[in-house]
Every structure is written in structure tokens, then in C-alpha cells.
């Protein structure tokens, strides 16, 4: 479409009609997933194959409209994924050689190719419809509705699916009514804290000032979390639309999107989206004839987890070291450049258009009373199905891990699920029926966090997990306040001692004391919540700590100093692969006879276990 500025709401509607008109009578558009995991699995080649085949099979019409790369379609470990516009079909593990058949059958005739669908591991039955694939069937896609169904780099795709109609509606509303709506919807901050969004907006609006700012926090730094990345990459306009509505409601003319440096594609797609929105007049002066001016700048993060903390983020935007400040005066009062500022997370902003379009009642139909709406999670770790999921608040962890996630691979036993990243905790099996919402997770000693869900199985050592998170936090602490700078490294010393067999009585108690100092004494949320991974593992897996300390034993077989490698004579066939690959050359034995490991030279690098085709290497 030709891009000229749209200056009225009617103009936007006309523009949308024109796009829809130009799309009529075409074959269903093919959506090739362009999420990073799918790209790594070769989806670009699949995309190229489609483009080539499109012409080869004599299809008329524009290739650009016929084949699109989309954002993450969710089922990451089954990629590359391919979907079709307005059809209940999804194909998995698609390779370029499948493409001619897909065009021939599915695109041209609407036939389904069963063998490219999902095969249930138990029933061995194939399914290609979303509703019949458990990973998708249990989800409720609202925020992610358009992710995977449009080309994120094409503003026309977004507009044709109703995009920016929420903005048009918002301009017909009084700004205070918009805030009322957000408040009544019960939307809570999706970045982790769960603070009521409407209240935040109202407080900001209440301050008399010449300048206000709105900020989108896209500094998603929790390890194991990629929800915000997927939204920024897959549907950036939803975030921008939410920000314009928010800015209009609180009276701000300048927005910032702070995006993590490690997410180059998210930065690129957000940048394109902002430029395109500006090109159509949806950002800039007098948007849609409303007399309201607003624009968004992108700030690229510098690789500091602490910048996800709002005051550190604002310092970073201003060209400083990202150190937090005390939030005794809140940022809605004194935020960026000491001006009243509304900072919301990516997913929170993406919820805003849904509330305006669907209304308060419509929005509250999903989720729980205290936490309405849906939550996007990234599901990963020791779980069969990994990927991006959106579920109603109030779903249980069990449903998430077992129904959607398909349980634990290789018949292993479930041990825990970690939520909330380094600020969260580990939740044991006994609490699997816990309903997921902001409050219940905090009560269990974890937190919602931004939505990373990491599943752990029996081979996971919980002391090692605590050590992992504290190592992470030591590296990411800004170092400004004493409890965080000094306390965390002392905790790490103790945890390292425990995992290396130097644990002693009183260590657990000393850890708890340090947690106490951090929780009460640290300056920002990174420090005050840093105790959670340690406290929750002590609370639910104290026996594992004690096994390390008292018996010098790692029950899960993870902690190097406490384990040995040996070869199971019954399983070893003497294939010699391990002996060849051992970097220490400490495995010996005759060909076709069981081998042995010289424990005195073994560095426990795990290579033998990785390469053994017969699973004969035992760790104890």
C-alpha cells in the first residue's frame, strides 16, 4: 500500500478497507515462523523454498502477500513451524523438500498433510489442528493472537487485523475514562511486580507538570524468559498502540522503548514499526486529528540485568551507569529526568489495546478476580514441549507443565518448577496444583516475575540451582549498596563450599541470615528479592542441602566434587568411543570389552557420558 499520512479516524477505517480489498480472492497466506529457534532450525530456507515454489507452481498474485515470515508461533522445539491464514492448520519440522507438496495440497486445494502435524507420543496419532494439539489446545491467545499471523515488519498486516482501532476508539474517549477502564480491568504489571497499571497511570496524571514520559520496559533479563522478546519481534505495533493510548490517557508526548541489547531482532522490528507508524501519522503531531502529539524513541540497553529495574533503566536512558536509586519518591512522581513517568513492561502495554477494544467486562472474563486476563509464559527446561504459551491467569502449574508442556522427557521424575527468574523461587511437586496468579506465587515464596517457567527434573541439584542464581546475581549486582554487593558474594562462597564438599553445620543458618539482610537492607528489588532462590530451595529441598553438608553427597549427581564417573560393565560394549573422546585419556579397555575410567585422572567433564551410545556411563 502507498503510505501517506492518515489524518482522521475515518481515514484509518478507509485505509483498512483498502488493504482488505486488495487481499480478496487470494489463496491462503503461508506463515513461516521467523522466531529465532525456528530460524536456527532452518526456517529461512523453508521460506526461500516457498518463494521459489510459488512461482514454479504457477501461482498468480503477489509472492509478498502469499508467503510471510512471522514472529514466534510458539511450539519452539518442533520448529520450523508453518501456518496458514484463516486455517486451523499447523505444520511442524518443515523442511524445504516438504514445500512443493504443501503448496500443491494445502495451499491450492486446502488438503491437510497429516504427517507434518503433531504426533502424540502416547497415542501415536497425528493432529494438525491447533485445538487437537495439547500444546496449543490448552492455551488462550489474546496478547499473542496476532503473533504468528502477520508479518511484524508490515504495518498493513497489523491494521488489516484491526490494529490501531483501539487507538481510534481511545481518541473518542475522555482520557480519564481510559484510566478508569484500565483500573477497572484489573490489569496488573506483567513485568513481575503485579502493580495495578491503572493506579500507576492515575498517580502520574495527578501530578502537575509540564512534561510526562511513558516508557516501555523491554529489558527482559530473566534467564529463561523470552515472552517480551517474542512480542517485540512478533507484533511490535500492539506495544506501540498500547503506548500511544497510555500516553494520551496520562498526557505524555514523549515515549521511550528500552530494549535489551541481546535482542537485535526485537530492536530492528520495533524500529521499523515506529518508523512505519510515524509514516502513517500514527506517531507524531496531531495523531488522527486528535490534536495529540506523541512519539517514541528507542534506547538500546547495554547488557545489564539491573537496568530492568525502573529507576536504573531511567538512569540508563539518560546516559548514565544503570544504578538504581531509592524509590521513596515514586517514578510516577519523579521518574525520567525527574519528571512524572509511567513505566510499563512490554506485555502490559500489549494488553492495553485489548482492554480498550473488548471493554472492561470482556477483559475480565478471562483470568481470576485478583489477576484478570492472560499471562504469556516461556516454558523451558526439562519439559517435553518448550516454547511460548499464553494461558488464562488461574491455570495450575500442573496444567502448564503436564498438559501444555507434555511432562518430563525421558521418563524422568518432576522435581520443581522455577518461576520469576533470579527474583523468584523453586516450587515443589506438592504445590503443583497452585493456581498461577500474582498473589499465590508470592505466597509460595516465588513470584510471577516476567513469566519464565523452568521445569526441573530429578537430575537437577537444587543447591546447584541456588548457586546458579546467586552466581548470576553477583555478576549483575550494580554494586552500589552494601548488602547486595557484599552479601551476595558471601552467599556464593557458602553455596560453593557446600557444593564442593566443604559445607559445615551452620551454613544453612548463615545463608538464611544473609538472606534476611538482603531482603530488608538492599536498595532495589534486585537485592531485596535475591534471597528467593536460596530461601525457596532451603524451604522445599532442605534435605538436599543436608545431604551435601552432612554426607558430602549430591543426590542429583550434579556437583562435580561430590560425584564420580564409572562405566556400567553390563551396558558397555567396548565400542571405544569414550576412550577416543576422553580429553584426559583416562578411559581404557580392550576393543569389544567393558572399559574402565581412571578416577584419579578424571576431570568429570562429562564427555564420555555425552558420547556413549549405550548409556553405559554412570554418575554417582
Amino acid at each position, binding site marked *: 500500500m502507498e503510505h501517506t499520512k492518515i489524518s482522521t479516524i475515518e481515514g484509518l477505517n478507509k485505509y483498512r478497507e483498502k488493504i482488505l480489498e486488495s487481499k480478496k480472492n487470494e489463496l491462503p497466506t503461508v506463515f513461516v515462523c521467523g522466531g529465532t529457534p525456528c530460524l536456527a532450525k532452518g526456517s529461512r530456507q523453508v521460506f526461500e523454498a516457498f518463494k521459489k515454489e510459488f512461482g514454479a507452481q504457477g501461482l498468480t498474485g503477489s509472492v509478498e502477500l502469499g508467503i510471510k515470515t512471522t514472529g514466534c508461533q510458539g511450539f519452539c522445539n518442533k520448529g520450523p513451524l508453518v501456518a496458514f491464514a484463516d486455517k486451523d492448520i499447523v505444520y511442524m519440522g518443515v523442511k524445504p523438500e516438504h514445500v512443493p507438496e504443501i503448496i500443491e495440497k494445502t495451499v491450492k486445494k486446502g488438503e491437510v498433510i497429516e504427517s507434518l502435524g503433531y504426533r502424540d507420543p502416547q497415542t501415536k496419532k497425528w493432529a494438525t489442528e491447533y485445538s487437537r494439539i495439547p500444546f496449543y489446545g490448552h492455551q488462550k491467545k489474546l496478547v499473542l493472537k496476532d503473533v504468528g499471523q502477520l508479518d511484524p515488519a508490515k504495518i498493513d498486516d497489523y491494521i488489516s487485523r484491526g490494529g490501531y482501532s483501539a487507538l481510534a476508539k481511545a481518541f473518542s474517549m475522555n482520557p480519564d475514562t481510559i484510566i478508569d477502564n484500565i483500573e477497572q480491568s484489573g490489569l496488573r504489571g506483567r513485568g513481575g511486580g503485579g502493580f495495578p497499571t491503572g493506579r500507576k497511570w492515575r498517580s502520574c496524571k495527578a501530578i502537575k507538570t509540564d512534561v510526562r514520559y511513558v516508557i516501555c520496559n523491554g529489558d527482559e533479563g530473566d534467564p529463561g524468559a523470552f515472552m517480551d522478546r517474542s512480542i517485540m519481534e512478533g507484533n511490535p505495533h500492539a506495544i506501540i498502540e498500547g503506548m500511544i493510548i497510555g500516553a494520551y490517557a496520562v498526557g505524555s508526548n514523549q515515549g521511550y522503548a528500552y530494549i535489551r541489547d541481546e535482542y537485535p531482532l526485537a530492536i530492528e522490528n520495533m524500529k521499523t514499526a515506529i518508523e512505519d507508524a510515524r509514516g502513517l501519522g500514527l506517531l507524531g503531531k496531531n495523531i488522527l486529528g486528535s490534536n495529540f502529539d506523541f512519539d517514541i524513541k528507542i534506547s538500546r540497553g547495554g547488557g545489564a540485568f539491573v537496568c530492568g529495574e525502573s529507576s536504573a533503566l531511567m538512569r540508563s536512558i539518560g546516559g548514565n551507569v544503570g544504578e538504581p536509586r531509592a524509590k521513596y519518591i515514586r517514578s510516577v512522581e519523579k521518574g525520567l529526568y525527574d519528571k512524572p513517568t509511567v513505566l510499563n513492561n512490554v506485555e502490559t502495554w500489549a494488553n492495553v489495546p485489548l482492554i480498550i477494544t473488548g471493554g472492561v467486562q470482556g477483559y475480565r472474563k478471562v483470568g481470576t478476580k485478583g489477576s484478570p486476563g492472560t499471562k504469556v509464559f516461556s516454558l523451558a527446561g526439562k519439559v517435553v514441549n518448550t516454547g511460548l504459551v499464553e494461558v488464562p491467569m488461574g491455570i495450575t502449574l500442573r496444567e502448564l507443565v503436564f498438559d501444555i508442556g507434555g511432562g518430563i522427557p525421558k521418563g524422568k521424575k518432576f522435581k520443581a518448577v522455577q518461576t520469576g527468574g533470579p527474583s523468584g523461587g523453586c516450587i515443589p511437586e506438592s504445590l503443583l496444583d497452585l493456581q498461577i496468579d500474582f498473589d499465590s506465587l508470592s505466597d509460595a515464596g516465588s513470584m510471577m516475575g516476567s513469566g519464565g517457567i523452568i521445569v526441573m527434573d530429578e537430575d537437577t541439584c537444587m543447591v546447584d540451582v541456588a548457586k546458579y542464581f546467586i552466581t548470576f546475581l553477583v555478576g549483575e549486582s550494580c554494586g552500589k549498596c552494601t548488602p547486595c554487593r557484599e552479601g551476595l558474594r*558471601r552467599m556464593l562462597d557458602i553455596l560453593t563450599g557446600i557444593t564442593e564438599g566443604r559445607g559445615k553445620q551452620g551454613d544453612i543458618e548463615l545463608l538464611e541470615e544473609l538472606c534476611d539482610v538482603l531482603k530488608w537492607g538492599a536498595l532495589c528489588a534486585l537485592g531485596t528479592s535475591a534471597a528467593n532462590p536460596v530461601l525457596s530451595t532451603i524451604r522445599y529441598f532442605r534435605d538436599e542441602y543436608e545431604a551435601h553438608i552432612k554426607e558430602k553427597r549430591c543426590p542429583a549427581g550434579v556437583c562435580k566434587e561430590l560425584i564420580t564417573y564409572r562405566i556400567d560393565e553390563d551396558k558397555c560394549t567396548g565400542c571405544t568411543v569414550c576412550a577416543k573422546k576422553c580429553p584426559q585419556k583416562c578411559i581404557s579397555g580392550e576393543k569389544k570389552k567393558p572399559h574402565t575410567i581412571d578416577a584419579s585422572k578424571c576431570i568429570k567433564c562429562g564427555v564420555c557420558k555425552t558420547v556413549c551410545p549405550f548409556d553405559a556411563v554412570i554418575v554417582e
Partner: protein
Amino acid sequence: MEKIKFVIDGKEVEAIRDQCVLDVARQNGIYIPGLCYNPEVKFSGGSCRLCLVEAHQAGRMSLVTACNYPIREGLEIKTDTSLVKRIRKGIIELLLARVPDSDVIKELAAEAGIDEPRFVKDEGENYHSKCIACGLCIQVCEEVVGVSAIAMLNRGPDKTPGTPYKKPSEVCIGCGACAYACPTDAIPMEDNGDTRKIWGREFKMHLCSVCGKPYIPEAQIDWIVKTTGKDRVFFDKCPDCR
């Protein structure tokens, strides 16, 4: 300036709205420890965490740093509760393990009843001399002197004040304000005859034309002359002989 009343340790006290708790407490003879805050330096404070107190407001309690907590209506402060003492003691123990040679910290530890930290004392490569990384020196250099010769470098446990590339700073004027402001006396400054050494750089000292005492680095005079337009002649005599 709006005057309001608030309660500290059971006593009703008057303060200016948004004034910090620590200033008012000190004015009223209430002792709260604290190292990183200097009332003359606007952006100081908030890092050492020794001045933590209980703030009760709107039915909620939190531990806050007295040095930057703004006083507002309805606030009640408790400076000496068991929670305050427990967390403060924990912080002092951490500092003691970091800078076991600091007399200031040793004194605080003795007050809190700590003989020895339960953590391995920092030494060798990890030795911090007496520096608690509070950042006051940096703020003084930036805000008061206006030079910014030093900055807080690195992050986390490696956070430390220093000059770029640890080289002698080209912009330092040798005034020593950072060393005077340091709460733990951690910045080495050597005055030797008519030279001063600080941050790895040697400064020539200006001698008083009357008593002959070296009293100010030449570079500092240059800086003052340049930034304030003051007459150079003014610096001929030291303050004692003026």
C-alpha cells in the same frame, strides 16, 4: 517551605516537608550511624545502608535509609528496634569482612557486638584497603569540586572508585577533597615537602609567600582562577597569613 510534624522514637518533631530523616534526627540529638551521606553533597547517601530505620506510614512498615527518606505527614520513625539492629549488624559484619583494617568499621563492629566476621576477610588480590565503595568521593569530585576526575568503575563486587584506565588523571587538580570526605580514610594522599601525590599523580604545591608553607596545589589555583575568575594574587598567602 512547608513545615510538618512527624514522630521519631516516640517524640514529636518538626521538620520541613521532604527533608531527610537523618538530618532531622541529628538536629534532635538522635544518633543514627551512617558513612556514605554528607549533608553538603546533594547526591550522596543510600549506599552504605547503615542508617536503616523503620518507617511506619499509612499502616505499613518498611526499612528505609534515613539519609534520603523524605519526611511527609503521618510518618513515624523508629531508629532502635530489634529489626533495625539485626539488619544493621549484618551489614556491619559484611563491611568488616571487606575492610578488616578500617578503624571506623572496627569501631562500629565493636558497638554492634561483633568480634570477628564469620566470613573470610578480604586480602591479597581482593584487598580493598579501607574502601567501602560508598561513592562519596565521586560525588564530592563531581558536585563540589566540579572536576569528575574519578568515577565508580566496574560493577558488583568489583565496584571501585578510580581514574580512567587507572592512569594518573589529566583533569585532577590535586585538591584532596575526595580524601577529606572519605568516611573511612581510604584514599591515600601523600604531602611531601612541596609535592602532593594522589590518584597516582604528583602535584606541585604552591608555597605561602609569608610563612613558606606549601598549602595548595598549583593545579587547584589554576582551576579556581579559570572557573571563578578570581585574581591569582589572592593565593600568594595561605589562609593563616591572609
